């Protein structure tokens, strides 16, 4: 019997159309716009100004705190301007816009494809290098990686868990990365294990990727301490707490971080970025992005530079289909609809999903029929129907009591609701308000 997490979960149609498609390197665009806030935490501070010449991999925005991340130029060329540009949500955010000239890489970056297995850096140096390279969680949450690797004093980490679950339907970026860069991911895992001073690492892969499980298992025999854990297909297994539960049966207490149970979770994409940063001195400025959808003529996995407009990826995948209803940044469950496709790819863009109009639009909202399906699928053991009501009625103290802040926004409740109620929308609203109240209390 395959392992999975203990509470709730759903199993949406997988639709992995782009599975097995080789990662294509996308041509460098003519112009990139690199947002200065691509991660959770404080936005970075630009260190270049209009007219500056930059090289690929050069630092262009500096991290402004512990929970923040450096940003490096994804292209070479001239800084055209630093201005507010539309982001995926339709609000204007500050971005560095670079006109591309050639493709000059910073000399310190090792561009060869050779596998370097010797880890020469000390744990402190690794964490520093990861921080300098601006690596953030590439699964989509974009939490700065060096923060997770810095185990707080008094806490002990004894297991590293690699998230190769890719539980979002449609997306195949991590899957393909494992197939093509498996060795590098193994070395990356060893680097992370050294940084965390643990001798045990588990790579959790869902059972719908048998080729990846076989490939990685075969590679793992060469490296000590790494085991592959095939998992039952269940959404949202890629959630940190769910994955820890699935792999180790440890439960992270409410409001606490995974380190509380001695675990650190990193995404496989992040692990690959760590390998490149530590062994090749290459900062994070490109990533694998899946472009897919039911009517997309050429579902693909691209290696794209940060700042590339989404429209260029869509064109490379065969253009926008005629029946397009929504273009979603991320997967269908947690992704967000883009208000315009000229917005740039960021460090957190795991996929671009093009939904036909027929399945993209929401159905009319009906009354709650008290079936309790949302309660049974909630992986955090919450009562979504109740949280929606208290958020709607602004009963914030009750919302806090009902542990609204535990919600991981996986959307299983909205997905499963037979009355099409926008449960997550209201819970998100409540989370925002309750978070505000809780922060003002601690001040």
């Amino acid at each position, binding site marked *: 019997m395959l392992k999975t997490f203990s509470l709730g979960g759903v199993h949406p149609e997988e639709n992995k159309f782009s599975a097995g498609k080789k990662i294509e390197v996308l041509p460098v665009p003519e112009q990139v716009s690199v947002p200065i806030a691509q991660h959770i935490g404080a936005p970075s501070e630009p260190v270049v100004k209009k007219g500056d010449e930059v090289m690929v991999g050069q630092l262009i925005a500096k991290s402004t705190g512990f929970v923040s991340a450096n940003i490096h130029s994804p292209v070479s060329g001239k800084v055209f301007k630093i201005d507010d540009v539309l982001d995926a949500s339709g*609000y204007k955010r500050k971005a560095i816009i670079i006109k591309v000239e050639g493709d000059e890489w910073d000399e310190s970056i090792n561009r060869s494809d050779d596998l370097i297995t010797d880890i020469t850096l000390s744990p402190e140096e690794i964490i520093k290098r990861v921080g300098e390279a601006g690596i953030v969680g590439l699964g989509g949450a974009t939490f700065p990686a060096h923060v997770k690797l810095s185990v707080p004093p008094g806490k002990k980490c004894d297991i590293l868990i690699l998230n190769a679950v890719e539980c979002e339907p449609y997306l195949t970026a991590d899957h393909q990365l494992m197939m093509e860069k498996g060795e590098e991911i193994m070395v990356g895992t060893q680097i992370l294990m050294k940084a965390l001073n643990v001798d045990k690492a588990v790579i959790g892969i869902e059972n719908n990727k048998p080729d990846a499980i076989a490939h990685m298992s075969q590679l793992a025999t060469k490296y000590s301490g790494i085991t592959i854990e095939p998992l039952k297909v269940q959404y949202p297994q890629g959630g940190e707490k769910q994955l820890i539960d699935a792999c180790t049966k440890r439960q992270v207490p409410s409001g606490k971080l995974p380190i509380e149970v001695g675990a650190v979770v990193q995404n496989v994409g992040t692990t690959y970025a760590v390998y490149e940063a530590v062994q090749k001195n290459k900062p994070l400025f490109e990533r694998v992005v899946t472009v897919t959808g039911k009517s997309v003529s050429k579902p693909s996995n691209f290696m794209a530079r940060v700042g590339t407009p989404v429209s260029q990826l869509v064109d490379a995948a065969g253009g926008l289909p005629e029946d397009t209803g929504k273009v979603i940044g991320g997967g269908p469950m947690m992704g967000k609809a883009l208000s315009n496709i000229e917005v740039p790819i960021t460090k957190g863009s795991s996929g671009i999903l093009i939904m036909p109009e027929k399945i993209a639009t929401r159905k009319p909202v009906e009354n709650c029929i008290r079936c309790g399906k949302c309660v049974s699928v909630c992986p955090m053991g919450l009562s979504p129907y109740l949280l929606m009501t208290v958020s709607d009625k602004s009963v914030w103290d009750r919302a806090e009591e009902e542990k609204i802040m535990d919600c991981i926004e996986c959307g299983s409740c909205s997905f499963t609701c037979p009355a099409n109620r926008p449960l997550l929308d209201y819970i998100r609203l409540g989370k925002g308000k309750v978070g505000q109240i809780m922060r003002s209390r601690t001040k």
Partner: protein
Amino acid sequence: MNVVLITIISLGALGSLSAIILFFVAQKFKVFEDPRIDQVEEVLPAANCGGCGFPGCRAFAEALVKADDISDLNCPVGGADTMSAAAGILGKEVTAAAPMVAVLRCNGTCDNRPKTSNYDGASSCTIASTLYGGETGCSFGCFGLGECVDACDFDAMYMDEKTGLPVIIEDNCVSCGACVTACPKDIIELRKKGPKSRRIYVSCVNKDKGAPAKKACSAACIGCGKCVKTCPFDAITLENNLAYIDYEKCKLCRKCVDVCPTNAITELNFPPKKPKVEKAETAE
């Protein structure tokens, strides 16, 4: 018979004893309440809207009785009449506050501001605003989902189907500010009602630069500054590409309305001024 008598006597005794105890307890724990609070509350509108800044009319009445100087306190719903009545009961001075009214600072009608996307999420402005910038190119303007209308307790607002914007019914608006708090985009403002309800305001909150603002909405303030230069009373300030008219300084001369290239400045309840326009043209 005997039983009935005993019952009556014992119960009577018990009752009188309790009454005596209650009498002394009431004396001992008597709470003095200023009778004026009740009197003042009587003249307040009993709308409990919170427009005065207090939780309900009773709390406002208590505040009125307690305060030595009540000139800072105002019941926007009752207006000058209510306040002078309350002041009369208390024997305090009150200066009549200028009546205020809510105005919508957005002119992004369906015609002025074309749609660029469709929103089909939860029908709430607050939720929509946390998700994205809106269905049009303007990320500052009205979402048109009517959270302000829901917040209004005085039937002073409705959604105009044609324009997609809320409309404020001036006669019903009591300037309680419920809509101002409800709007997540800070579009609604309380402004002085003005003589004969005449007022002038910049009907836009777009802080984008001129070109993108104009592209998103033909009635947007593009921050050109013409109005600032024209205003003889220094009532207009320009900040972040957006003009703002200070209603305390504005003398309602309407010069800014004429120079605004996008008609972002709205004038309300003025008589038509055809002859003046002709004059200005011939003078040029």
